């Protein structure tokens, strides 16, 4: 099964959302779902650096920083590094189904700005085991994630 594309009407709706609430929702979700597994990593050299994640097919831009206690949403502004891909490709990356370099060669992933920062975060995330991350998620979410990965792999 392939991960489904984002339904068009929903995409149109998302693209009308302002960045700030979306960034806040993203940071909140990140802190809830991913942070338990990520807090172990050494984020000291990343602290305060500004990230922008552009979901190209949704026209969505997320701005945030990472600190010792988790993600923090930012108002629109300048970013130190920008990651651009489609919602589906971001999802496949998060589920460890796709290799970022492969996406880059195929022009489906772009890292602009501070390349070292971008690669360093990419490599740090690669070093986290999905099983560990899923185990750290609250109330059954981890099982959902692993199930989703399993389905998408077939």
């Amino acid at each position: 099964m392939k991960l489904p594309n984002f339904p068009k009407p929903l995409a149109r709706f998302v693209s009308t959302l302002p960045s700030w609430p979306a960034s806040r929702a993203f940071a909140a979700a990140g802190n809830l779902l991913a942070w338990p597994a990520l807090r172990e990593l050494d984020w000291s050299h990343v602290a305060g650096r500004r990230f922008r994640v552009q979901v190209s097919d949704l026209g969505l831009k997320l701005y945030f920083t990472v600190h010792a206690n988790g993600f923090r949403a930012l108002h629109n502004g300048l970013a130190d590094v920008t990651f651009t891909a489609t919602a589906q490709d971001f999802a496949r990356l998060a589920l460890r189904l796709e290799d970022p370099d492969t996406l880059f060669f195929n022009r489906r992933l772009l890292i602009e700005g501070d390349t070292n920062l971008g690669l360093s975060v990419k490599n740090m995330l690669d070093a986290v085991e999905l099983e560990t991350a899923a185990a750290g998620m609250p109330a059954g979410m981890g099982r959902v994630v692993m199930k989703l990965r399993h389905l998408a792999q077939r």
Partner: protein
Amino acid sequence: MPALLELICPAGSLPALKAAVDNGADGVYLGLKDNTNARNFAGLNFDAKSLTEGIRYAHNKGVKVLMALNTYPQPDTVSRWHQAVDTAATSGLDAIILADPGLMAYARKVHPNLRLHLSVQGSATSYEAVNFYRERFGIQRAVLPRVLSLPQVENVVNNTDVEIELFGFGGLCVMVEGRCLLSSYACGDSPNTFGACSPGHAVRWQQTPKGMETRLNGVLIDRYADDEKAGYPTLCKGRFDVQGETYYALEEPTSLNSMEMLPEMARIGIAAIKIEGRQRSPAYVAQVTQVWRAAIDAVKKDQAAFKPNPAWMAQLNKVSEGSMSTLGAYYRPWK
């Protein structure tokens, strides 16, 4: 029995190591989080904790762990390389992969039982060179640079006791490894001393009205139209102008894939096949290891009947630079 076509896979992180082990590698190679190895990228590689865990995981499943210490120690920081050798010796690793003769002398003297491999970064392309390292430091295996044709490789194999390891798949160095300073000419850091070609701090990607541009310390490596595949930001894979013609003057963005030569490699007695890509994700390691495990098993079962399965080749091309692959120098006309 001498080693034959062992599958040696890359691990830039613990999940990548596990992916290699779980998908059929005979050995994994890894490096520490500093410039003692030639994949010195931020966030990549192993610290004391992940190293211990990685060795435990691999050894439990009978898989060897090799450590690359394949950059060149420099006068003021030699002790960092010495410590890395000491770490390797006490951690129960199966071998270390070295390029520098001075470091080999240290390893030989202080840890005489530690198995030594000659890294591709040592640039040994003849049996005279390989035998030099054998006599002096007792190396047991050499990884040859990606510059010899297969008959030339055979000539090396026939004239040395040292096991020969060849690159099977992955990023393709066009230049003799250990003898390429293109990166430092443009940005000050080379694989030999810094441990990375085109290090992240010097690379910039930017979408512009003319296309996506890749620069190394300001030097334009290439500019891609929207429908063009991209390559790594290395100078040897860029497009340049020679006599008014713009083309890939050194090499296209492409990966090495020598799978169709596996029967020949088995015949001449190649001890191990190396898969490139410590900078890549666990997803890549899992996919590539799986395919090569199947291919090597097939060759060992029946050399004569072996043909690369089209599904394998498609899988490998998918993860290749520019989605293309080449036989490289193994096939003489490439030169």
